[in-house]
């Protein structure tokens, strides 16, 4: 099976609320694809449709080229963490994984392996009701890894994890992708994906806003700006402005320059013997890039019908 997720024209509405509208994307093997958008954007709905839990009103979702319900041992093909709280509190962590293993004919050995892998070895025989949110996340991730599947979906996996846990899951996501698996990770916080996602699907109001690599997104957001640090700010601004650049003063010693590549800036300043201490290409953060992209979405957030928002949020829960 090729390790991919493919959505073609996915549509889903709940009553009058459009949750997902004409969504198409591909999650290829070997990289971590981030799935970002504000709460209620349709991320969880999309994931449920991929997993065959919700039936799309239109379009198809394929895993490894096949619809989910055609999979006979789905845990061996797709691992998913949807809701870490979806565990019976009276059941031991190990028993929770055990029934899943039985349902797909997986060996009991796998249960013990994934428990160790997610670092729950000491809590395997404790009842899930006593788990912290972070431990439940780890249990949910163990469940996703149980069938050693080539395709993985994680819905907000970072929720509730402590910094150590966040570092652990970033490493895990990267290593899963490095093993050639297709990994789809959703988050409503762009920053959570920084350092782990290679590619981003940005979604707002159920529509795809961007399907781009992280590098390209950052480049767009950074907009070829150069930050310059100099004690002779006024002269430097004049020289650069005469050369056709747009110059903006940030503070007494810093200006940003756009419209000129960094080499030209350095050449112009050197020619006029204007001393400078720092010239750097301005790097936007993923968060800035995201906010720039979803400027519209922010507007939508402010004007959206509150009822619509609540309804969608309800489905997310």
């Amino acid at each position, binding site marked *: 099976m090729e390790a991919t997720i493919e959505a073609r024209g996915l549509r889903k509405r709940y009553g009058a609320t459009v949750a997902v509208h004409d969504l198409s994307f591909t999650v290829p093997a070997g990289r971590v694809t981030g799935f970002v958008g504000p709460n209620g954007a349709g991320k969880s709905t999309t994931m*449920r449709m991929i997993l065959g839990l919700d039936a799309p009103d239109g379009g198809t979702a394929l895993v490894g080229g096949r619809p989910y319900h055609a999979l006979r041992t789905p845990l061996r093909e797709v691992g*998913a963490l*949807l809701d870490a709280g979806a565990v019976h509190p009276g059941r031991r962590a190990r028993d929770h994984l055990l029934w899943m293993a039985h349902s797909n004919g997986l060996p009991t050995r796998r249960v013990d392996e994934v428990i160790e892998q997610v670092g729950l070895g000491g809590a395997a025989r404790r009842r899930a009701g006593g788990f912290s949110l972070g431990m439940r996340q780890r249990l949910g991730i163990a469940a996703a890894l149980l069938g050693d599947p080539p395709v993985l979906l994680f819905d907000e996996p970072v929720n509730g994890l402590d910094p150590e846990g966040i570092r652990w899951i970033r490493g895990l996501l990267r290593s899963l992708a490095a093993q050639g698996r297709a990994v789809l990770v959703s988050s409503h916080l762009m920053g959570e994906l920084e350092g782990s996602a290679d590619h981003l699907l940005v979604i707002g109001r159920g529509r795809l806003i961007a399907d781009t690599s992280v590098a390209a997104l950052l480049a767009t957001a950074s907009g070829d700006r150069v930050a310059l640090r100099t004690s002779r700010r006024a002269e430097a601004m004049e020289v650069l402005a005469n050369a056709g650049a747009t110059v903006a003063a940030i503070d007494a010693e810093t200006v940003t320059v756009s419209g000129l590549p960094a080499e030209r800036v350095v050449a112009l300043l050197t020619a006029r013997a204007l001393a400078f201490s720092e010239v750097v290409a301005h790097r936007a953060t993923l968060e800035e890039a995201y906010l720039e992209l979803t400027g519209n979405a922010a507007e939508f957030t402010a004007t959206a019908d509150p009822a619509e928002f609540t309804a969608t949020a309800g489905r997310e829960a």
Partner: protein
Amino acid sequence: MTTTTTPPGTGLGTSGSRLGAPGFGRLVRAEWTKLRSVPRWGLIMLAAVGLTILVSLLSASGSSFQANLVAPPPTGPEGGQVTDTFRFVHQPLSGDGTITARVRGLAAIEGPNHPWAKAGIMVKDGTTPGARYAAMLFTPGHGVRWQTNFVVDEAGSIASGEPWLRLTRTGDTVTGYESTDGTDWREAGSVELTGLPATAEVGIFVASPPSDRVERQFNGTSVTSRPTWSTARFDNVGVRPASGQQPATWTDEAIGMVEQAKPNAPGAGRVAPVAPDAPAGLDGPGVPPAALLSGVPDATGASTVTGTGDVAPRAVDEDLTRMSLSGALIGLMPIVALGALFITAEYRRGMIRTTFAASPRRGRVVLAKAVVVAGVTFAVGLVTCVTAFLVTQPSQRDSGFVPPLFPDRSLTDWPVARAVLGTALVLALVAVFSLALGAILRRSAGAITVVVLLMVLPQMVAGALPLTAARWMMRLLPSAGFSIQQTNPRYEHVSTVCLPETGCMPDSPWLGVAVLAGYVVVAVAAACWLVRRRDA
């Protein structure tokens, strides 16, 4: 034979394709793991066991029976208690022979005819109540019947009119015939009365069973049983011994009547005129004067006979086995909760998505859950019912339910085994019913309420409804499944008052279970359809 070769051209080579479809057994194993790994559910099961046994014990020690007030009824040749009370105009017949008579009418002295009033001819092993017999008889409600030894009843072909009846004895075999004209005879039945003495009593007889009047109000039901009297006219009465001897002389006798009408009973308000030739037992208070209109056949073979009573198995009201298992009605409630929780707990926490993601064929998941919950409930229910049956026996004996009126029962008697196995089966079916409603409603409270109401409420409200409505309710609601607990035999030819409020189920044991099973099948089918159709 299993093959591991991949068909050419597919070459998918993924683990899923190699292993093929997951067997249903895997799903059952997964669901069993789920069930056994929640300790609270085990406690619920224990509660069901404890409640069933406790309530059964309370019910057994709470009812009592004062045996010394009732003389033990006669026992029939097939075992079991019988009513053997009737008017018998008879004579001894030595060796083989034939008795013939035509019934020219059978009517109650007052009030409507009892459908099972009987007028006919009989060959009987003496006049002791409970003695073996064979009879051809006519009833107002059910035409000509062939009846032997109390329990056997077969319909003849003549439904009304003035039928000719004949009994022929050959050795131990007695054969019954019927005819519309006295010339063309049709055989209606034959029986071997093993041990019938050389000289048996043959004659014409009339019996008229008591009529039951039921008065029902909320919180109170009274059943009044009043004796009825019926008069039959016979003609062409003739006894022909095979030996060619002259027939003996007739004796008019009220069989088994002595207990019923006690002369000089205190408080007797009316003294019946006593005819000089009134047979023993027909001279007490409460006997209408017309009851004495009776006589032996005259020279032409015509006779009028008036009688009361019945020749039939005795209907026993108390069903000790049912009483032993009565706790199941209460023990059922934790099982209902368990059945519902087994799926609603998953809906409540969103775990159903994990389940359906692991097994996308959702109908099979529901079925696997049903198999697991039914299997566990049946096993636990069986142990519980056997225990309840065994532990209630001593208290029932202490409460006065003793032989001979209440013979000892054993788990190896089929009606008892049927009740015990059947109650476990009913519990299992109810658990599945509750599971299916849990899948349909996705809420524990709703599912539990509906099932408990359907199973328990009918018995509680039956007393407040008109009898017909109450009986139909008991028939049509899933609580009909409890009919399997009834062990007392029912006979078509015995009218009984079946009061739902006393736990009497109108249906036969297996029919009731079939009704419950019908509900379960429909609910499971609806659940499978809905879970497939709905978003998880």
